[in-house]
């Protein structure tokens, strides 16, 4: 509450100072009137919004919607015309009546968003990738990140649960940088750090800019370790009012189903005594074959150079391949820009909101697992329509669960931000920015009285739950930005302050013992568990947490003739999450660029159009850890009797650590941008070396004398090196036909350098707990000096054969450390060894765009290489011992002789390498001879069309952005191909 007040106070203070300065403004100009018109060299159409400036002065204007401009300029002045997407042009004022601008090719003049400002592409000294709307993956995107999947070298976007509309993608830049903290990049939407991706619709996004290296990300200091993704939405534009409507319909079709045994094969293996007579394909019954998703986005934009807007509304009904698995959402986004006070004060306002209603009931891994293992001869219902439950361990009827339970989420997300920018003198910009992002949801759940859960756990009285969560993230930032040009030297200085206050709060309650299903969860007090102590206890809980992040930051840019560039950044930032002694930290970076192609010695080498060397070094941090970790909190341990009453007990929850501090990443990046043969062939190569130090982890602590065996502290070091190569080519460009082909390639290597200091050690860490039955322990071990994601297990030596008792055949044999061969009862921890790695070493993508007259075709491939997959589906379901449950068809093939319980060894590791034909889109652009329609495009897209792999499981593309990567869990959500037909129209 306090902090909230303080930030309001600060906002007022700053606003007052801004107004003060505003009042002091005045401007004057003198000279001769110049007027003219700016047109596009190719389309011959007028270009509105072009900046027209008198060279070496601050005098300037912007072209009107019809391309015309007028301003007052001295007699011999030279005018500079510049506009995004076009090459700048200098024209003498007396020859400026008709100015033609050429669109830039792989435009080096493109503006790159770098956080608290922008830079021209050719001035960038760090590793920043940009993807603009025209390069987005096409088709229906479930998440905004789907739009750039595979488009940026070093950026991994993975979707582990197929195309489930209620799942999100996991994102990572340049591999793993933390063991316990956040591993996903910071998302900044229109300048709001920590923006919410739910607020973005694919047609509202203008570009993604990805700050990959430390030198670039240092401007976001404590949140820069995992890189930064800056998303810019489409904004209002001066000019003729424009309406756009985008729509698509999409259907998911199963790409691959698990190889479940047929009823006949099942009976052969499980025995006639398990034959219940029916023949049911339960997996099929959980699919919604007629699923259809549709999407509509309607946008309007227009206005003048001084006041313009863009507003859009959308509706999206997304249905997954699973039944009871959908999401309906609608919302809108408004952008208003106004410039006034003689062009000295500008305001930008963005409001966005999203309402969605998600059916969370279906699409769960557990239901599909039940469908896979359900006895295929068991009927779904009995003669009376009552659902039949099979009797096996942990069995339930998934169809019954889906139909007898419900689980909904109603979510509202919104954000509003306002930026006021004052330009009291030319090239000095002072801006104040305030934003609030709020995310709230209500969950509701009801399990009807007849459901299995109700009957088994709630004495048949049904179960209801309601839960609510509310998150708010408030930001206030202010920046001062000044550019000074002294002959060939250009300086830019930016400084600022940032304050963010985030809170979340939840409450959650449940009850049971309902007389009737009529209320569902809408009258939770009707559950008799409130009064009847013999029913399972109703539950209630509430929680709230907060945190504060405060920063001072600055950036200096210098360039000489756009040939030599230099940039330095410093962010001084504090987070409430850290120990009393270490709340503040400094995050500096320096980088430089040299455009070799502008040197005189290169002038004669015409084949090279552009050649630039970049190098940078930056320090960033990671504050993505839970709140209150440095405080000595007390936790509960169950009630105990004191003075006749049962009272909760409390004890220290953790070993105290007042020295808890930032994880720091030091990153060195060197890059080369090049372009040759008239820009027909170009690209970049970046080599990076990262070291994350002071790695936060729950380290083993001496026990005794500490109370707990773990302490959350900064000890280890992680290294992360890689190479990223981007190749842009135009193999064919002739009249009516062009072919663009882009390749990205990433090589990455993670390694734990150390895990220990004098006091705390973590010589080895384990991940990937293998599930019951069998509780086989952890699949992945990380050791000091070793790579992340290393499978650590037994070495398979064969199966027992020719035993005296044939029942003893087909038992596991493993190698012991000394090479001898033993069974499962003689093997122990010391016999485990490194058997593979689950994190891909190489990632690649290849995108092609063909254009022929009005047709365009894009074909996009993506692949990951150099990793292994632990196939848990085979391990558990591919064994006869899984009977009396149904099994996968491995039991008829590779695992036919296996006659033993699950055991973890290299037997179940497979090569995971794959190539996917990820997206293929065919489009047609109508050029209609009517003044009513400006553009019309019709397209058809197929996604995830084919996968080339040797992997025998459902999908070799696993979540590979975590410490337990490479384990193909027992999730049987079907992988789908998506087919989309879409239409974009502008009028």
């Amino acid at each position, binding site marked *: 509450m306090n*902090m909230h007040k303080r930030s309001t*106070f*600060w906002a007022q*203070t*700053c606003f007052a*100072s*801004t107004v*003060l300065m505003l009042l*002091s*403004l005045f401007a004057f100009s003198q000279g001769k009137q110049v007027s003219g018109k700016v047109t596009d060299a190719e389309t011959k159409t007028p270009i509105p919004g072009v900046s027209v400036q008198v060279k070496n002065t601050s005098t300037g204007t912007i072209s009107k919607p019809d391309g015309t401009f007028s301003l007052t300029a001295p007699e011999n002045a030279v005018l500079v015309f510049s506009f995004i997407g076009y090459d700048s042009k200098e024209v003498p004022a007396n020859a400026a009546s008709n100015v033609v601008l050429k669109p830039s090719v792989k435009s080096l003049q493109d503006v790159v968003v770098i956080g608290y400002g922008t830079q021209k592409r050719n001035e960038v000294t760090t590793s920043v990738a940009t993807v603009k709307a025209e390069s987005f993956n096409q088709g229906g995107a479930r998440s905004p990140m789907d739009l750039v999947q595979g488009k940026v070298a070093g950026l991994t976007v993975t979707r582990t649960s197929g195309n489930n509309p209620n799942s999100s993608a996991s994102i990572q830049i340049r591999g793993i940088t933390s063991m316990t903290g956040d591993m996903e990049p910071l998302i900044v939407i229109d300048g709001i750090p920590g923006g919410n991706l739910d607020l973005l619709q694919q047609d509202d996004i203008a570009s993604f800019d990805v700050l990959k290296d430390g030198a670039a990300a240092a401007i976001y200091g404590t949140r820069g370790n995992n890189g930064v993704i800056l998303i810019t939405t489409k904004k209002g534009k001066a000019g003729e009012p424009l309406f756009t409507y985008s729509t698509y319909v999409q259907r998911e079709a199963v790409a691959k189903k698990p190889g479940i045994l047929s009823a006949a094969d099942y009976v052969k293996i499980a025995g006639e005594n*398990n034959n219940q007579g029916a023949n049911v394909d339960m997996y099929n019954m959980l699919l919604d074959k007629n699923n259809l998703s549709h999407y509509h986005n309607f946008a309007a934009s227009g206005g003048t150079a001084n006041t313009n807007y863009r507003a859009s509304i959308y509706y999206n009904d997304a249905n997954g391949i699973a039944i009871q698995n959908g999401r309906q959402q609608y919302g809108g986004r408004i952008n208003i820009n106004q410039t006034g006070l003689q062009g000295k004060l500008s305001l930008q306002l963005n409001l966005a909101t999203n309402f969605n209603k998600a059916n969370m009931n279906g699409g769960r891994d557990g239901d599909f697992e039940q469908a896979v293992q359900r006895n295929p001869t068991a009927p779904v219902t009995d003669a009376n329509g009552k659902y039949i439950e099979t009797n*096996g361990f942990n*069995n339930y009827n998934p169809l019954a669960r889906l139909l007898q339970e419900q689980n909904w989420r109603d979510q509202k997300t919104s954000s509003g931000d306002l930026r006021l920018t004052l330009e009291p003198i030319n090239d000095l910009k002072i801006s104040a920015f305030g934003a609030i992002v709020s995310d709230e949801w209500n969950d509701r759940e009801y399990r009807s009285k007849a459901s299995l859960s109700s009957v088994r756990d709630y*004495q048949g009285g049904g179960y209801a739950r309601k839960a609510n969560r509310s998150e708010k993230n408030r930001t206030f930032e202010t920046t001062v930005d000044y550019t000074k040009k002294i002959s060939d030297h250009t300086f830019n200085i930016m400084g600022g302050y940032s*304050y963010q206050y985030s809170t979340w709060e939840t409450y959650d309650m449940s009850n049971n013992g309902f007389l009737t299903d009529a209320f569902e969860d809408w009258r939770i007090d009707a559950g008799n568990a409130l009064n009847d*102590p*013999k029913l399972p206890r109703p539950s209630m809980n509430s*929680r*709230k947490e*907060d945190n504060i992040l*405060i920063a001072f930051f600055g950036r200096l840019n210098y360039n000489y003739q756009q040939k030599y560039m230099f940039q330095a950044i410093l962010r001084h930032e504090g*987070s*409430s999450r850290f120990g009393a002694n270490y709340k503040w930290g400094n995050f500096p970076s320096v980088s430089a660029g040299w455009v070799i192609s502008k040197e005189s010695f290169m002038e004669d080498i015409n084949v090279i159009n552009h050649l630039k060397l970049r190098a940078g070094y930056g320090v960033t941090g990671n504050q993505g850890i839970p709140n*209150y970790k440095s*405080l*000595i*909190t*007390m936790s509960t*341990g*169950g009630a*105990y*009797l*004191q*003075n006749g009453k*049962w*009272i909760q*007990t*409390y*004890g*220290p929850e953790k070993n105290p650590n007042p020295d808890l501090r930032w994880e720091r990443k030091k990153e060195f990046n060197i890059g080369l941008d090049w372009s040759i043969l008239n820009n027909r062939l170009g690209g970049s190569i970046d080599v990076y070396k990262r070291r994350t130090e002071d790695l936060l982890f729950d380290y*083993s602590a*001496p*026990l*005794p*004398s*500490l*109370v707990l*065996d773990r302490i959350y502290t900064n000890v280890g070091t992680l290294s992360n090196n890689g190479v990223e190569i981007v190749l842009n080519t135009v193999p064919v460009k002739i009249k009516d036909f062009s072919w663009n082909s882009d390749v990205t390639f990433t090589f990455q290597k993670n390694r734990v350098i150390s895990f220990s200091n004098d006091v705390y050690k973590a*010589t080895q860490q384990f991940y990937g707990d293998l599930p*019951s*039955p*069998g509780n*086989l322990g952890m699949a992945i071990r990380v050791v000091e000096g070793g790579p992340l994601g290393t499978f650590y297990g037994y070495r398979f030596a064969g199966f027992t054969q020719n035993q005296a008792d044939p029942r003893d055949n087909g038992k596991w044999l493993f190698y012991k450390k000394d090479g001898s061969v033993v069974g*499962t*009862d003689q093997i*122990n*921890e*010391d016999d485990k060894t490194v058997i593979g790695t689950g994190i891909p070493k190489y990632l690649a993508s290849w995108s092609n765009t063909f254009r022929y007259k009005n047709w365009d075709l894009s074909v996009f491939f993506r692949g990951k290489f150099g990793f292994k997959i632990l196939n848990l589906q085979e391990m558990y379901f591919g064994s006869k011992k899984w009977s009396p449950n149904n099994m996968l068809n491995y039991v008829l093939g590779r695992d036919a002789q296996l006659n033993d*319980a*699950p055991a973890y060894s290299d037997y179940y590791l497979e090569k995971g390498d794959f190539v996917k034909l990820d997206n293929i889109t065919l489009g047609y652009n109508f050029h209609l001879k009517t003044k009513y329609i400006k553009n019309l495009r019709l397209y058809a897209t197929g996604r995830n069309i084919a996968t080339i792999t040797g992997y025998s499981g459902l999908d070799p593309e696993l979540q590979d952005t975590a410490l337990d990567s490479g384990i193909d869990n027992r999730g049987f959500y079907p992988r789908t191909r998506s087919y989309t037909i879409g239409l974009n129209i502008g009028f």
Partner: protein
Amino acid sequence: MKKRNVYIGAALMALGMSACTKLDEKPYSEVTKDNFYHNKEEVLSAVLRPFTHANAWAAPTGQLGYWRVSELSADQLAWPQKGRHGYDGGNWIRLHNHQWIANDDNCWNPWRLMFWGMGFCNATIKDLEGLDFPSIGMTNEDKASIIAETKVLRAWHYLKLMDLYGNIPITTEVGVPATPETKSRKEVFEFIEKEIKDNVEQLQKLSPSLVGRVTKAGGYAMLVELYLNAQEWTGTPRWDDCITYCNKIIAGDGGSLSGSIPALEPNITNAFANTNSASPEGLFQIAYDFRSGNFRFGWEGDFWHYRQRQIYNADRDGNNGIVVIPTAYDAFKDNDLRKQQWMLIGLQKKDPALRTSVADSVVLGTEEYNGKPLVFVKEIRRNSEGETGEGGMTRGEENSGARFAKYLPGKTDDPNYWGNDFMLYRLTEIYYNKAEALMRKNGGQATQEAVDLINTCKKRAFKPEDWAKEAYTTTTLTMDELLAERGREFIFEGKRRQDLIRFGKFTTASWWDHKPTSDKYKLFAIPFKQTSINPNLKQNPGY
């Protein structure tokens, strides 16, 4: 003029900034140590934390603690692999075969849990010593008594740690020293003895309102355990000291949960029933009340079958883990009520309230016997595949082995449903211990007093008509018979490993498929996880 305004603006900004550089955390839903101990309830809630923690290691509640390693390494209980279930990384097989290594959860997890509980005691003692009791409405006598209780409780943690690991570090203050050094078992023994004796007389006498707490009765019982094992642990027998403290307990010097002196229960079930918080046998127990405290002695995970709730009309099922070793089952005579009532064997029927028809009266299996009646058998072998012979640890099935039924929860509508306390020390054990001390003093020969002590207890396990044949005499109660009878009486109570070691059988005897092992296994290894970060720890011999 423009410039000046810029300066003013910058100055105002700087002012605003300095007002907003505070980074305090407000823990809304958590309580910090600095904001605790405001009243008696808060003080006691910290004092009692190690008691609820002991639930995790002293009782069979699903964690790998003192109870599990004490029973699964001995001759009565095992957790065999049952088809695809229960291999669990081979942990239970290694416990059974005595094949554990320093880098083994069997060595690490009991250490972790028990020193953690000990650390709670250290933390509480330190916090309370610095607390001004009168200022929060408590007396200095309260303070002395509470600290004495916590110190005796801490000594009990050390007693049980010493039992498993022998040579261990001793710390009495959190974090001091950072890496404590190993003390010999003799030093640890002396520390425990001194701590208990220095504090036990300041404890309160056991009374119904102190159920579950460490009182004089519990403190004396700890001394009894310490002295009974003194010869094994230090090389010096202390039989007289053992008898002295047995006598104090029996005489009621330590108080009782019922009346002025503790008394044996008249039957073999009361001490374990869901009303046992008032059992006159109880000396020290972990107290639970599911109805009022929503906290229970959750043994179902370790012991129960996947469908076992149907047998009792209970609300939970189990993981089908721990079963009785066939030779231990056979160590009971058929007419022994403990065999009939503390174990499940044969066809399992549903609680009548859960039967929907006559045909539906039987609990069904879910694995090897999927859909067929669940019939527990004493063998641990692949009966469904026609196996004969003694079976083995990897050869179990879902119905293998007789099952635990010593503690029963009652039905879900029972007002005391699952209110059972877990008995740590009960009077019967004091009788057995005194008898053993008397016999050992007497060169391993039973005295009449010893025979009477055992017979008084054992008599409850037989019908009156059988008793005449079953009663011991000074000739039939040999040391071997005493060990066997201890096994029958205290099965499932987490005491068997200590007994086997004291009787010299732990590493020398065979049972079922278990073969004799080396003497090094009388101690568990100091866990590798700790020796690798604390250079002052010394590994036990042989590891």
